[in-house]
């Protein structure tokens, strides 16, 4: 062990070259802790001893044979470090002077080539990147529109982003985050559109982030968010390529990290989490209807069960008399207080959701049906819950799944519980109090320093388009003005309303 560390220290020193091939082999082996698939190949060409080394599972063997070995072995000229880089038919040749640097290249899929008695080692990257192809989005599925989701490879993700934003204005700044396990992170935005201040804020947050490693984009976004205490997500995490690109083309900032199939979009508003890209693909009136539906669903989702609890426990007077009879009859068989009844059934629904998400797809479906139909019916028959409550709970559960963002949907499902409990303790006064706290919290929140509750607070009338409603494209010629983009006009209004006369058609 001691011996090895000594060697390790020695190898770190600069200017250890030239070196004997055997010695280099030993020091590379030490650096990479005797990696079993580390392959060394000694060849002799034109009286030069050349050592080629690589990790076999990381590299593309065909390219190794065709582009490296073949030209190397059949060369007529004498090889030196400089003409290796110039003459071999592989791009990306780099020269290093320490074994440590070379090894870090080897583990990311490079081949090291050393000509004995030369001062530098040359590496060529011929990474055989094992990655899954672009697939359909599974977490944020929509019916119409492009169906592509990010994959785990940053290269692929950047590729698809660039492919659809064909503009040299698209900047993809590179950051490396993680002191122990570095991950490549790209900050993407449109230079001519995105607000410089926002870009600078994000850049600074990325620069200042000191952490040993980040597991995923979602982890990164939690590090970058304005408030880590809040239950609400402040950046939109999307796996949809079209959503990411749409946001960037609207002047927002995107962050992609290697190894994660999700892109971060910032800044985002609360209402942005209920927007779906489908709203853009649909006609404006249908899109507006669906968007409204989602807002209502969100409201139903966290208010319906607390209201049920409050009414059944305290405020029988607000019910219409016929509904009162139905509710009273269904409640009369239940041995628990309304709070316990609701919490019990909510727990069943949450268990079903959790089980459905963990189990393999085919089993998950069965569980959903068994749980939804059989359990619900059985619970009513056993007199554990009232049948009105089954409908209420099912409705609020369904409503919570309409949010396009799974993170937001989960947040809404969770904030229901404190509301149910205060409803059970204080009735509608409690619910109102809880809602007030919630609204105060939302009003105070920011996303990348921008108000979270835009455009409702601070109220920006012009921004209601594309946030709460969607106007026809002919009218909505402005981008969001509250984000202070460099250019907030999509097209000139006059030109869009001008009708071409028959005389103009010849032009």
């Amino acid at each position, binding site marked *: 062990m001691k011996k090895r560390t000594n060697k390790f220290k020695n190898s770190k020193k600069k200017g250890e070259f030239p070196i004997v091939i055997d010695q280099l082999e030993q020091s590379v082996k030490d650096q990479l802790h005797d990696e079993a698939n580390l392959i060394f190949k000694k060849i002799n060409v034109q009286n030069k001893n050349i050592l080629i080394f690589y990790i076999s599972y990381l590299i593309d063997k065909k390219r190794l044979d065709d582009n490296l070995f073949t030209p190397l072995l059949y060369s007529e000229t004498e090889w030196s470090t400089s003409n290796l880089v110039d003459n071999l038919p592989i791009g990306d040749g780099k020269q290093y002077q320490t074994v440590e640097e070379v090894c870090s290249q080897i583990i990311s899929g490079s081949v090291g080539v050393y000509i004995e008695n030369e001062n530098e080692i040359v590496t060529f990257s011929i990474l055989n990147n094992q990655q899954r192809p672009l697939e359909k989005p599974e977490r944020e599925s929509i019916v119409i529109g492009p169906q592509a989701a990010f994959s785990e490879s940053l290269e692929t993700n950047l590729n698809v982003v660039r492919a659809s934003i064909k503009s040299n204005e698209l900047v993809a700044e590179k950051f490396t985050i993680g002191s122990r396990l570095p991950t490549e992170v790209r900050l993407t935005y449109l230079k001519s559109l995105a607000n410089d201040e926002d870009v600078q804020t994000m850049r600074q947050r990325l620069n200042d982030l000191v952490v040993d490693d980040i597991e995923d984009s979602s982890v990164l976004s939690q590090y970058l968010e304005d408030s880590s205490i809040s239950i609400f997500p402040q950046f939109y995490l999307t796996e949809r390529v079209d959503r990411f690109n749409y946001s960037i083309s609207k002047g927002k900032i995107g962050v992609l990290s290697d190894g994660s199939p999700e892109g971060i979009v910032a800044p985002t508003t609360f209402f942005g989490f209920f927007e779906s890209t489908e709203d853009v693909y649909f006609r404006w009136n249908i899109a507006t209807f669906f968007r409204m539906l989602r807002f209502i669903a969100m409201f139903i989702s966290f208010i319906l069960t607390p209201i049920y609890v409050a009414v059944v426990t*305290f405020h029988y007077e607000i019910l219409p008399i016929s509904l009162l009879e139905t509710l009273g009859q269904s*409640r009369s068989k239940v041995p628990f*207080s309304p709070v316990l009844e609701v919490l019990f059934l909510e727990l069943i629904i949450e268990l079903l959701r959790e089980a459905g998400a963990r189990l393999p797809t085919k089993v998950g479906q069965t569980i959903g049906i068994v749980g939804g139909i059989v359990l619900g019916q059985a619970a009513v028959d056993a007199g554990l819950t009232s049948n009105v409550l089954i409908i209420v709970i099912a409705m609020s559960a369904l409503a919570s799944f309409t949010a396009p963002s799974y993170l937001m949907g989960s947040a809404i499902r969770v904030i229901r519980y404190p509301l149910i409990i205060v409803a059970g303790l204080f009735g509608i006064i409690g619910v109102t109090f809880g809602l007030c706290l919630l609204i105060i919290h939302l009003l105070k929140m920011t996303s990348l320093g921008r108000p979270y509750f835009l455009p409702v607070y601070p109220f920006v009338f012009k921004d209601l388009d594309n946030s709460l409603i969607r106007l026809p494209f002919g009218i909505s010629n402005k981008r969001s003005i509250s984000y202070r983009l460099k250019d907030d006009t999509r097209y000139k209004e006059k030109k869009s309303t001008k009708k071409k006369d028959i005389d103009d058609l010849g032009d």
Partner: protein
Amino acid sequence: MKIVLPILCMATLLIGCVDTKQIEQLGIITSYGADLLEDDLINNTLLYTQFDPDIKEPIQLVESKSNSYEGAVDAANLKTNYKLVTGQLRLKVFGKELAKQGIVRLLTTHYRDAEEPSRLYVVVSDTTAKDVLTINTSFNLSKFLYNLIDNNRKLEILPKSDFKDFAHKYADIGIDPIQPLITIEKKKPIIERLALFQNDVFVGSLTTEETFLFKLVMENFKAVTQEITIPKQPFEEFIKKHEDKRDAENLHVILSELRSGQKITLEDTKNLKYNVDIKIDANLLEISEQVVIEDEKVLNKMEEQISKKINKKLEEMLDKLKELNVDTIGFGRIYNQETKHKELTEQKWRELYPTIDVTFNVDVNILRHGVFD
């Protein structure tokens, strides 16, 4: 933390203070009836809804004796295993005898109780409240009585007569309340007449036909159907063939889509001369005889006859009201508005009211005839 801890403590400790009213533990009173007993106690009849899986009939009846309204609920609580609450009370029925002594003492808590609904009907029973509320029916009696009044009010047959109307007409000087009067016919509650109040004391009643006239003066009709009887004699020449052999004297006319407007003006404050202008637009839907309407003349004649008839009836109704000294229409209120700086007192108006002189000008206009909407 300094603020959070006390708030948390308070929230935890004060939870016990909130009184829960779990729906299945309540006896929800939907109708209340009060009758006068001989010893001046009040006999209360309460209809309440309870939810018990073992008992099929959710509507239960409980009686109690007390001196006050709140006492009635309290006394009734001893006779039931459910907690009686009044938040869904829709109907208060008062027996005739009790109503004759004044009912407002049983309604005062209602002004202040936020739990009790304001959409509540106050009615008088032709016999006793107990008779009305103990009718043995297969349907929900509370609901039936409430809808009986509510639907007829919406159909513009009954005048505005919910609790709010009663309360403000009672409190205002120069106007008296009018509330439905429930009679029992073939073991079913019906509305045949309307109870007239002098302040809160039941003094007489109006028939439903008079109710129409009363509404003509008080409220605007939007679309109502009304039958009016006029003499047959002036139309004799236009009648083709006598079809109605039953009634040789009169012609029965149905006016539909009747729309009315009214204006009461005080012409002379000294002599109390009132002018009531009533304008009626209506469709002529049906006549009991086959009257040939070929030109405007017939219609004009008909309009004239109807006006005359309504005018006469209005005068009769007013005479009746004057005789009872009940100002249901609210002439006193108009007098009070016109004579500023002179506070009108209850007593003074009761003296003045029988001396008022009212001229009715009814203008009937038949827009179409024979057309169904």
